[in-house]
Each structure stands twice: as structure tokens, then as C-alpha cells.
């Protein structure tokens, strides 16, 4: 008679009996868990083909298929652009429901306490999913679906997404045969991040894809951008341009150092009476006060050349100067009044600062052998030939 032992190196009928029973327990007592299966890095790759980086980056290989074995960035060791299966896998799982406080210790972006441990029947998981659940897979827990969100214009319920952080055999899932039957995953709330863009870009309602994506309705990004925009709008209202606005102030026109007859100034008879337009901004000159507007809001002729037959005291704004330059005709020559040095301060192409000219530069340079090449180039790749495709 063989020696009594629950352990068998092979999976015997005992194992199968127990496994079937445990599976039944999950089917009976568990709930459906929806799983978004991670397939691997996106085949479109990342920044290996970034403008100016035409050569292949060995640390950021471009794969021709998605495979969970691949790593997108071999230097930083991270998969940023992940592809998820369009199919959603449904498996029975069990977890302990816990109370979660709305933790704002990190500005509301984290839900520190919201960590779940979900158990799955191992063999059912393999049968359904094709592999073990792993870090990066995303699960939806349907019983945590949140009905009645604050915004009634959106979906009736907000699903609860978690991302798997860790996965291993559950200690409670080992049977008397010492073989494991249960796979336990640790999940934390999924952020609306680049890694999950494939899921976030799916329509919230597959039957009505025009209604918006998962990100549109689930992410706080839209609200945060609205908040950001409101702040920038107010900031631009308070400081429309850099420097100082002195256009509301009055500068006295002078003749030989004495105030000119204001009647001549008010007559709008510019160009005929010397001294009826101020020669400079006078007491208003200061740091970043050049706004290319003549003193007292007097008329100015903008153009790329000086106007013909000017009168004494006429202003001309040369648009072909950078920054634009305001001149005043004194009867003999056009004298510089000021440069328009004030500029928008919101980062973007409308900002005409020195640095912005380097960053927000869409100009091209014509070459004899390489066509038009971009004027803006990274220092590391500057003037290197690039591929045509």
C-alpha cells in the first residue's frame, strides 16, 4: 500500500475535483469582472521617428506586432503606448469590499486607500483569458459602477477602472493537494494617463460613438483644462502684454522745450505744424513701455516703407522692423520714437520673445538639394540629412 500523501507532483483527480469545486464557488459567489487585456506596445511606436530623429533608436525599437513580451523603451524600461484588446474578457472574481475615503492628501489626484485584491479561479482565467492576468491589465468592477454622477448630461453611470499592479497565487487558493487554484491580483485606480490611452479613446457608449470617449466623460482632464483656460483668460485680461500700458496718459507736445499750443494739437492738423505731436513718450518712457502707438493716440501710418510727402510731426510705423519701430518726421528725417517691445506672455506662437522665436518657429529654409528644411531643428541633429519618407 503506498504511503498516504496529499501531495502529488502531477495534478490528479483530487486536484481536479477540488479545482472544479473551487471554480463553482467562484461562479456562485463571485461577480463578473471585465478585463481589458494588455497586448503589448503599440506598433506605431513612440518617438523613435520624432522629427529630426530619423535614424532608428536602438533603445526604442519599432515593433511590427504587439506582444506583451516587448518593452517599448529599453533605456527607461517602460511601456508608454500600450495596446489593449478590443474584446473585453469577463471572468468571475472575488474581492473584499472596503470603505474608501476620498483622499486629497495629494491634491485629489490619488485615491491612496482604494486598493483591491481580487481573486480569480486560475484555470478559468487561463481558459478565458489565454494567459495570467499581469501588471498593466485593466479591470472594470461592475458592482462599483457609480450611478447618478454630478453631471446629469453624461452617462448614467461611471464605471470603475482599476489597473493591475501585482499578480500572484493567492495563499488561500492552495488546496490540500498543495496545488494552487486561485490567482490574486492587486489593483489600484487607473489614472487617465498615456499608458491607457487605447482604452480612454474608446467610445463611452459603443452604440453612440459620437457622444464622446471614455476620457471625455471619465477623466478630470477636461475640467482641469477648463480651469486652466479660465485662469489664463483672467491673466491675459490683467496683463494683456508684457511691460506697461502707458497709452492712457497724455504727453505734452513741445516747441523749443515749451508746451505747444494745444489748439494745434487738437485740430488734428498733423504734419503741418512743427511741435504739434510729441517727439517722444516723455515722462512715460521706461522699461518695456514701447507699444508702437504714437503718444496721445495720434494717427500713425503703418507700412513697410516711409509714407511719401510727410508733414512735420507725422508718425510712421515700420512693420518690416522686428520689433516694429515707430518713427516721427521732424522735417528733415524720420526719427525713431520707440520699438514695439510689448508682447503676449502666454506661451505660444503669439509670444514674440527672443526664446519664443526659437521654440515657436515654423519657418522653412529652402535648399538646393534637400528641398525645404525646417528652420527649427534640435541641436543634436541639426543640418543632418533626413529621409524623404
Amino acid at each position: 500500500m503506498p504511503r498516504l500523501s496529499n501531495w502529488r507532483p502531477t495534478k490528479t483527480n483530487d486536484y481536479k475535483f477540488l479545482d472544479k469545486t473551487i471554480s463553482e464557488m467562484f461562479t456562485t459567489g463571485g461577480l463578473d469582472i471585465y478585463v481589458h487585456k494588455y497586448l503589448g506596445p503599440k506598433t506605431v511606436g513612440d518617438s523613435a521617428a520624432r522629427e529630426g530623429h530619423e535614424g532608428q533608436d536602438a533603445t526604442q525599437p519599432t515593433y511590427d506586432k504587439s506582444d506583451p513580451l516587448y518593452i517599448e523603451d529599453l533605456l527607461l524600461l517602460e511601456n508608454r503606448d500600450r495596446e489593449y484588446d478590443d474584446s473585453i474578457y469577463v471572468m468571475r472574481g472575488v474581492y473584499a469590499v472596503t470603505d474608501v475615503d476620498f483622499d486629497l492628501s495629494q491634491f485629489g489626484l490619488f485615491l491612496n486607500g482604494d486598493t483591491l485584491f481580487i481573486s480569480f479561479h486560475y484555470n478559468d482565467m487561463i481558459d478565458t483569458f489565454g494567459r495570467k492576468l499581469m501588471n498593466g491589465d485593466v479591470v472594470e468592477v461592475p458592482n462599483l459602477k457609480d450611478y447618478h454622477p454630478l453631471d446629469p448630461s453624461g452617462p448614467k453611470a461611471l464605471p470603475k477602472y482599476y489597473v493591475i499592479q501585482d499578480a500572484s497565487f493567492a495563499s488561500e487558493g492552495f488546496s490540500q493537494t498543495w496545488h494552487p487554484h486561485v490567482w490574486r491580483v492587486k489593483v489600484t485606480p487607473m489614472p487617465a494617463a498615456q499608458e491607457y490611452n487605447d482604452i480612454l479613446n474608446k467610445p463611452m457608449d459603443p452604440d453612440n460613438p459620437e457622444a464622446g470617449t471614455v476620457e471625455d466623460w471619465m477623466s478630470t482632464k477636461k475640467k482641469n483644462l477648463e480651469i486652466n483656460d479660465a485662469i489664463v483668460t483672467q491673466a491675459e485680461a490683467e496683463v494683456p502684454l508684457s511691460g506697461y500700458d502707458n497709452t492712457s496718459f497724455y504727453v505734452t507736445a513741445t516747441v523749443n522745450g515749451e508746451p505747444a499750443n494745444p489748439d494745434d494739437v487738437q485740430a488734428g492738423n498733423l504734419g503741418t505744424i512743427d511741435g504739434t505731436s510729441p517727439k517722444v513718450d516723455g515722462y512715460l518712457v521706461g522699461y518695456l513701455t514701447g507699444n508702437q502707438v504714437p503718444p496721445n493716440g495720434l494717427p500713425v501710418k503703418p507700412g513697410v516703407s516711409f509714407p511719401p510727402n510727410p508733414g512735420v510731426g507725422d508718425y510712421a510705423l515700420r512693420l518690416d522692423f522686428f520689433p516694429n519701430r515707430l518713427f516721427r518726421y521732424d522735417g528733415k528725417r524720420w526719427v525713431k520714437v520707440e520699438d514695439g517691445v510689448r508682447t503676449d506672455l502666454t506661451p505660444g506662437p503669439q509670444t514674440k520673445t527672443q526664446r519664443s522665436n526659437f521654440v515657436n518657429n515654423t519657418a522653412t529654409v529652402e535648399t538646393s538639394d534637400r528641398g525645404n528644411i525646417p528652420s527649427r531643428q534640435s541641436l543634436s541633429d541639426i543640418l543632418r540629412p533626413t529621409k524623404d519618407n
Partner: protein
Amino acid sequence: MPGDLQQFFYDDQIRRFLLQFTRMFSNFQVEYGREEDGSAALVRIPVRYGDASRHASTIIAENSKNKLPNVPMMTFHITDLKYARDRVQEPYFIDRKTFKQRTWDEESQSYEKTQGNAFSVERHMPVPYNLSLALDIWTSNTQQKLQILEQLLSLFNPSLEIQSTDNYIDWTSLSVVELADVNWSSRSIPVGIDDDIDIATLRFEIPIWISPPAKVKKLGVVQKVIASVFDSNGDANDALLNNDLLLGTRQKITPYGYQALLVGNQLQLLRQNQVDTTEGTLEPTFAQDDNVLWTALIDNYGALRDGISQIRLESEHVDTEIVGTIALHPTDDRLILFSIDEDTIPQNTLAPLTAVIDPLASGPGAGLIPAVSGQRYLLTESIGDDENVTPPDAWGGLVASVNDIIQYNGTEWEVVFDASNRTPDESTNIVDFVTNITTEVQFKWTGAMWVKSYQGLYRGGEWSLVL
């Protein structure tokens, strides 16, 4: 309640810097891999204040724990606000500036090309503080963090200017945002049991100024610049405020050095080099040949209001300011009509004069009208003396000295004001004033001579304009 409450004031001074700080980091993007066509998929990074209230955070999350927090994201918060002892300056300093505005057109809601109001602005010395901010950069992967930092870190070498307002008068608006420190990661290295969202923190210092409200006054007085700054004790503040401490070194300067010439009830504006040819005489002043226009000067400071605007004159011969309202002359811009407040000019202590005469050149019935009882003349020359037994027939036996006032009593001329025996009473501060009814010029007896009391030339600093 123990008394009236202090007036409330609040000018969003720190809040406005926070607004601009948010703007500084707005509109940056990161690359979210590639689009199907191979172009870079760029995503804008939101920036907002980090220390949000639970209430606002709940609303952002739509009162649901299922909302997905987005990354990348930038949040910032104030970490410190300290008094900057190293930037302290004279705490009691008040800066005074004058500003002329263009006329505001309510209808078009725009400024016109003409001179509008003029103001004097007093700015109290603001208090220096150092504002410390932390900018948290939330990223879900290292590449993302590198992309953001590369864009941000090239901004600060070592600092970037920031403005809380573009108001030309706000001397506290300009500051700099200086990158003080970079904290690379909030994670423990190597990665632990969770892939937490990573936070890189940039710490910034902004030297700012907190200021009380400014004081705006309507500019009307031609400013008198005080050239003397320190008194003998080296006390600048007292020297500025107290005339008696100036040791006679105060200089009054009127813009362009213009002078005002009072001719009857009109004032003429004169250049600095012009002189009153009648100065030092008892002759009435007359308009000089100078073409400076009052309108040109007044428009420097604001609009003249006929009958309300004033000119104030300070004469060495009159203890108090002579005040009168002004109005533009209807036909001559060189002149301005000056309606003197009679209470501000000296009262006559003597009966009015018929005229000022040289008794040796003319006499009653001989160049002057025949003598009538009550006629009074001020003499510019002496006539007769005790040894002169044959005085001119016209004056009878009159013996009088220069500066004497004589009066005809119906039968003979007699001296009614003996200049040689008349000195101002210092104990009562009474001096003699008399008006010549022929020229309407009032004279003052100084004890040695007659002078015009307030008619004549007022040099720069001796007159002021109140609009």
C-alpha cells in the same frame, strides 16, 4: 464697539502673481506616442492651483470616486511667504508722481487725443516679501517627465520675469520667478510595490512687494519742487515737511520757469527771461511782448474751469496768499481773467489817492486839475523846504518830502502822511496801504519807500495754479 473700523482694502496682490504664474506654465504639451499617420500625438498639460479645497476637488471629480485623475498635470502651491529683510528700504518713503491722462470718452469707451484729468499719485513704500512656490509635475512615465522638464527648464536661466499687472503706475508689478531647486522624484528608487504617479517638483522664489493703497489727488497746483533735502541735523523727513527747518534754502521751481504778471485784473504768462519794466516804480504794470499761451500751460495739468479754478499769488509785500478765480480771456490766450478775492488783498489803511505826481513837474491847474477839497497826491519828489520862502505858486507854502501824501483842505495843501516820520508798527504789524484811484494800483509803505503791494510780476514758484 470701541470706534470706527479701519477701512477695508484688498488688491489681489498675491493672487495676481498666482494667476500669472499659472499662465507661465500653460500651453505646454507632451507627446503621446504617434498617430496612425506617424505624426506626433501631442497632448496639452493642464496647470492649476494644487491646494484645492475638498469641496472643489469633489466637484471636479463629479462627486464620484470613479473619475479618473489625469496625468500629466502640473499643480502648484505656496510653500512659504517670508519678510525679505535684505530688501527693506526707507519704510516711511512716499513717492510722488504726477500723471496726465487723455480725455476719456464715455460714449465710445475710449481715450481721446486731448488732455484730460491730471493727477498727483502718492505711493507708499511697499513691504518686501519672498514668495515661495512649488510646482508639482505629475507624470505617469519617465519619458513624459523628461519631455516636460526639457521644455520648462530652458525657461529659467536662472529666472523669468513675471508681472502682476501692466499698470504703468504700479511699481510693485514687476518681479522675477527664479528656479531655486529641482526635486527629481517623489518615488522611492527602485520602484516599490505600486506604480505611483511620479511627481517632480520645481521650487521657485518670487521676490514680491505688498503695498498699501496709493493716494490719488487731483493735480491742480503747479508743483513747487523742494531742492533742499536735509536740514542741519541731517533729518530729511522733517526738512521736507517743515519750512522752518529749511534754513532759507528752499527753492521753488515752476515748470518752464514761467512768471505771472498781474496787470489790473488780468494775468499774463511770461517766459523766465522776461522782466517787468515797471518793477520798482509806482507805474501801473502793462502787458509785455511775450506770446506764451495760458492754454498750453494749463493743459499740462488739466482742464480750466471758468470761475472755479484759482491762481494763488505769494507776494513779499503781503503776508497772506492772494487768491482769485480765473477764466480764459475771450480774445487773447496770452491773458487770463483774474477775479481777486477781496478778502485776500490788504485793506487800505489810508484814504485813496487821487494820483501819484511829481510836484516839481506839475501842479493844480498846471498839468493837474484845479485843486478841490479832499484831493490827495502821493509825491515822488520833495517840494519846498523850511528855508525856501518862495515855494511854487501852485502849491502855496507847501513843504513836503518825497513819499509824503498831501491833501487839499479847501484853502491850502497840507501833509497828511509824513513819510519821514512813519514806520510800520511792528508791535501791531500794521503797515500802511493806499490805493491810487487813477490806476487802481494799491501801494504799501515799507518804512522807506512806497511799493506796489500785489500788482506786478510773480516769478516761478511765487504763484500757483489750482484747477
